[in-house]
């Protein structure tokens, strides 16, 4: 059973507009949530994270929102740029409980010029 879900396999957005990538999870015990970005033939790179005790974290063009009651988080990219075109993975883990990250299946974002 997938504990972290990304129900949209792909998303296309016009350059300059907002990109919203969604992630749902089932395990209410997760302590941290992270977003990773992956280009083809490269390893994932860390983008932004949020603790389960917060509802928003912002870093430049990237903002992550967490809705614990809905077990939902989203990544907002404003404004979107062509270089943002990549696969985005949502991940979660429990602190002090094993060391494993649980990853979603990913969403492929295409930012059109």
């Amino acid at each position: 059973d997938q504990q972290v879900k990304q129900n949209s396999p792909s998303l296309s957005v016009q350059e300059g507009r907002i990109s919203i990538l969604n992630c749902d999870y089932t395990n209410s015990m997760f302590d941290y949530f992270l977003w990773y970005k992956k280009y083809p033939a490269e390893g994932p790179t860390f983008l932004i994270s949020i603790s389960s005790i917060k509802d928003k974290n912002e870093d430049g063009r990237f903002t992550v929102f967490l809705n614990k009651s809905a077990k939902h988080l989203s990544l907002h990219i404003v404004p979107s740029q062509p270089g943002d075109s990549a696969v985005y993975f949502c991940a979660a883990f429990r602190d002090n409980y094993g060391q494993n990250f649980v990853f979603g299946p990913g969403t492929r974002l295409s930012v059109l010029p």
Partner: protein
Amino acid sequence: DVKVTQSSRYLVKRTGEKVFLECVQDMDHENMFWYRQDPGLGLRLIYFSYDVKMKEKGDIPEGYSVSREKKERFSLILESASTNQTSMYLCASKRGGRAFFGQGTRLTVV
């Protein structure tokens, strides 16, 4: 900056071969991981290690083994490669709440 280095970017191996994928990290991290990435399935954990000579099975350990003789090095071994092990393999090390990934190894088994 943390550096996680995988020994090969691309590998082509024959069915039945024994395959070694090597990973080295330079930040003295205790925790290291091997994932495979397949389209639509995300990153799935094969094995992880939380210390030298310590290892734990992940979600899909069948057909794989690992070795961690030194803290900085974590090796993934395909005992007898099969075509369903064709995939992108990603090594990571962890510090606190963040995983740092290598560049990946695209393995093709023919």
